[in-house]
């Protein structure tokens, strides 16, 4: 009898100790690419350095092919400059095809042919001025008459517009990272791609706590607790200029050609990093009712900020 009790106690004691496997945080060095930094942390993951290197290569690859600057690989810049690209990487072809399909999926609120107009606005903002309305109308017409054709591994731009994959490339690469991690049965991870694209695995089985920051003052406005989700954010607070009390920034409405100022910040919560990236850009230009309807149809959760407070929040954030 005594031995039985002793045995039961010892069994529970050992079970208790074994269940206290501590959280092991495996932080990785930041990756400088895609005009931002990618911060990766693993949790209780065997051989995490190998996974880190593999994910780093994924981001580098998509950074190269989607680059609007000089690149070591055949890139969007080459395509925009030469109007066609022979022997393009499959990664670039798939990325462009996805961007075009999502342009239709997002009802035109995301438009990858906005490259020229986007470039002109960036130059104008840098010089503290706004674009002339006639130029905007002219550029919108060019954007709307541009398309792309594929012939095996040759890509051809039809029309005079330029491609800009800035609204999708990071999310697409993060989604590829997710596919890699899933394929290798890695579950404990957190990827923060420049704060605008976040991939949550799990924290040794637990939820993450993600603070959603106020757009223009310090501090988190709400804390989201969750796991196995993608978060996308778009904000007009970066690289902007205020003229006559209007903020001009890089997030353009593809229908008006002007920066959107309906919201200060848009956050998306969904299951796919690429969609989180593209939809946050698209919703940034949608009116409130259109945005609500869009989110409902796409089964995604959104938080829309204006003037440092929440304008609208769907139910999934709690």
């Amino acid at each position, binding site marked *: 009898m005594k031995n039985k009790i002793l045995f039961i106690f010892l069994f529970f004691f050992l079970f208790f100790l074994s269940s206290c496997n501590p959280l092991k945080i495996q932080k990785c060095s930041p990756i400088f690419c895609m005009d*931002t930094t990618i911060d990766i942390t693993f949790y209780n993951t065997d051989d995490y350095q190998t996974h880190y290197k593999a994910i780093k290569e994924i981001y580098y690859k998509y950074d190269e092919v989607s680059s609007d600057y000089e690149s070591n690989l055949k890139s969007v810049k080459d395509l925009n400059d030469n109007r066609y690209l022979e022997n393009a990487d499959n990664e670039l072809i798939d990325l462009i095809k996805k961007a075009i399909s999502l342009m239709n999926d997002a009802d035109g609120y995301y438009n990858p042919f906005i490259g020229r107009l986007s470039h002109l606005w960036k130059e104008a903002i840098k010089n503290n001025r706004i674009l002339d309305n006639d130029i905007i109308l002219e550029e919108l017409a060019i954007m709307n008459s541009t398309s792309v054709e594929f012939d095996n591994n040759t890509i051809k731009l039809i029309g005079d517009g330029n491609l800009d994959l800035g609204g999708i490339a990071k999310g697409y690469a993060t989604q590829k990272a997710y596919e890699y991690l899933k394929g290798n049965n890695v579950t404990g991870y957190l990827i923060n791609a420049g704060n605008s694209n976040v991939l949550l695995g799990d924290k040794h089985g637990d939820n993450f706590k993600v603070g959603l920051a106020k757009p223009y003052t310090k501090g988190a406005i709400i804390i989201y607790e969750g796991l196995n989700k993608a978060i996308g954010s778009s904000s007009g607070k970066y690289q902007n200029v205020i003229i006559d009390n209007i903020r001009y920034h890089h997030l353009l409405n593809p229908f008006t050609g002007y920066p959107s100022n309906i919201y200060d910040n848009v956050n998306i919560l969904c299951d796919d990093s690429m969609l989180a990236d593209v939809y946050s850009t698209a919703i940034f230009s949608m009116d409130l009712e259109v945005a609500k309807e869009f989110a409902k149809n796409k089964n995604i959760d959104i938080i829309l900020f204006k003037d440092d407070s929440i304008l609208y929040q769907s139910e999934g954030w709690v």
Partner: protein
Amino acid sequence: MKKLRNDIILIASILIIALIGIILLLSLSKRDNLAAEIYYDDELIMTINLDKEAEYIITGDVSDLIIKTDINEIWVSESGCPDLICVHQGHVKSTASVITCLPNKIYIKVIGGEEVDLIV
């Protein structure tokens, strides 16, 4: 009977000691003060405790950065980079906040505190 009682006391003692140990371990692993990790490219070059007023000069790819700290806050006060985005990011005061200077390849991340894993 007495032996059984002693066994129970012994087991209960072990459990209590283990519990105290775990509580101590957990409380020690939590940091009251924040710290900041500073990376140049992918290399961690410095970890600073944010427990006092201090100033550091870090050399990046295009210029030096002057990084200042106070209790639980850090900021870039000067940089020679073109857009000064790092300077405009201002004082960061919460864990998981970051300051990035892309032209200089400098990345600053606030750690400790354990309030949140990330701020977006």
